[in-house]
């Protein structure tokens, strides 16, 4: 990514940033997102306890309301769950997993989808229509159905969740990359590159791809948010990551049985964290789309 910004000169990047920063809401969202990422990355150092280390948990501290003083941790600011786990720590670690799944699946699906899209645009004809048929077939079914099929046949676990998310997402990138590449392939600089008899893969990857990146980045922001939501949903339904390493969705599911007795904090706070994360990505993504938009197309 950095290499590409360098090759395309500094000016476009600076104008995009200026347009993006014109919105205070977007800047705030970006700051919130950065804060959440930092908190997730630093979780082992800033979390009051390691929620996966059973020796640090005290079952006698189970289901304490927020703000209670405790034995294992001085104050449980957000309360504890049924196993006496500090909710704040569990959420920081859960955030790690949610972000890893969201960003990881976006990276893989983005690379695969972009390659498929570029190949389709370059090859044209039967290969193009064949690849796009597959993408369309996939897009005509709701994401959760496809994810559910993968989990139903292959079983739960983080690897299968990632696979499901990649299968759900790749077609969006493929479609976007293809339509952007089709426009670029008609432009003069590509013709010039062809006249130099550069190999096709070099033209595609070094000349066309950088110019397709704006639309792909916009797709990526929405897809990261969707992937995080889908992973949380699967985990909530008991079809996602394993119980030993809870993501935000699984934390909410754990608190579900106590909701009816009024002990709502176990489900409430992980959900608030999820909401803030998703809203930050969506708001920043919205503004990013507006900032990049004038530069889309020829």
């Amino acid at each position, binding site marked *: 990514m950095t290499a590409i910004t360098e090759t395309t000169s500094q000016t476009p990047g600076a104008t995009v940033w200026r347009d993006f920063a014109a919105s205070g809401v977007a800047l705030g969202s970006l700051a919130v997102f950065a804060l959440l990422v930092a908190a997730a990355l630093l979780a082992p150092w800033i979390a009051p306890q390691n929620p996966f280390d059973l020796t640090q948990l005290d079952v006698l501290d189970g289901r304490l309301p927020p703000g209670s003083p405790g034995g294992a941790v001085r104050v449980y600011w957000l309360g504890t769950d049924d196993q006496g786990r500090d909710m704040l720590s569990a959420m920081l670690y859960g955030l790690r997993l949610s972000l890893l799944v969201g960003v990881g699946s976006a990276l893989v699906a983005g690379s695969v989808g972009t390659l498929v899209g570029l190949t389709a645009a370059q090859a044209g004809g039967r290969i193009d229509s064949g690849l796009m048929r597959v993408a369309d077939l996939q897009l005509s079914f709701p994401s959760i159905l496809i994810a559910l*099929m993968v989990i139903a046949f292959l079983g739960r676990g983080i690897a299968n969740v990632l696979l499901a998310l990649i299968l759900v997402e790749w077609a969006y990138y493929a479609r976007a990359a293809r339509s952007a590449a089709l426009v670029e392939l008609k432009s003069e600089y590509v013709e010039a590159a062809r006249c130099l008899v550069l190999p096709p893969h070099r033209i595609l990857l070094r000349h066309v791809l950088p110019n397709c990146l704006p639309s792909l980045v916009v797709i990526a922001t929405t897809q990261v948010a969707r992937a995080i939501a889908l992973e949380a949903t699967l985990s909530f339904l008991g079809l996602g990551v394993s119980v030993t390493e809870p993501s935000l969705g699984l934390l909410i599911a754990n608190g579900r049985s106590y909701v009816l007795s009024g002990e709502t904090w176990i489900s409430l706070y992980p959900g608030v964290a999820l909401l803030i994360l998703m809203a930050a990505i969506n708001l920043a993504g919205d503004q990013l789309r507006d900032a990049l938009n004038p530069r889309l197309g020829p």
Partner: protein
Amino acid sequence: MSSWLLRRLIQAGFVVLAMTVIVFAGLHLAGNPVDILVSPDADAAERARIAAVFGLDRPLWRQYLLFLERAVQGDLGRSFIYNQPALSLVVERLPATLELSVLALLLAVGFGISLGLLAGLRPHAPVSRLIMAGSVVGLSLPTFWVGLMLVVAFSVRLGWLPSSGRGATVPLLGVEWSFLTLDGLRHLALPAVNLALFKVALILRLTRAGVREVVHLDYVRFARARGLAPSRVIGVHILRAILIPIVTVIGLEFCSTIAFSMVTESIFAWPGIGRLMIESIQVLDRPVIVAYLVAVVLLFVTVNLLADILYRLLDPRVGLADAAPGAVR
């Protein structure tokens, strides 16, 4: 039109066929198909007998044709848990899901279009900004978490609405429905609102974008200049233009509402096909999983086809010769 329709029908047939191949392949990826078709506590002789009955000793392509043949006859195996044909189990639960999804979609369309019109016509009013901010929250809210919070607020704290089940039902055309009784409607309220929330935000944004585009066009300004009542300009001139894309989206959203209803159904213990599917995955009741997938794929392909036809009927500008696949999302 008829040649387009024929091509579209053939295409829909191919989609269904492709999905059966995927489901069949999935069954084989999942492990030994004998384990899938026979209950786990069957002995070796029983396993061999079932393998012969289902032709599992034959080559894979023969097995696929057999699977297809049985599927066409409506035979997708028996549920291990309920000990009844898997397909009839799914069909039995379908009305509950349908009434929940249709009500949620009606709510989403009603609120989505009216709020979207409001926000689109007066884009700088504080109320419009509030609506748009709300729509971002709506798109960011995890559906399952909202469901839990609705239970906390309206069932636990306030005690206004029940949190689980379908309530009283009455038969209509031989099927039990909840939406015809007051008690049933009370049970429907929370799940339907839960399921509708995300779609309201989606349709609202779509409507607003459409209104903002159309409101400056010459024919709308001309209608205003003629002194037509604002209600007529909005209700006829603007709404008609923005309804076309919305109708197509609604077709697709109906499919996604049915698929996502499994989340809402499992929170509110709503006895529909989604909850059945989740429970079946958790206990590995594979015949039911296959039956759900086949039924849902058939339903979705039909809905997509109908939405495509409706789109073409509504918008004469769409070339009938252009047979682009019906996928939008």
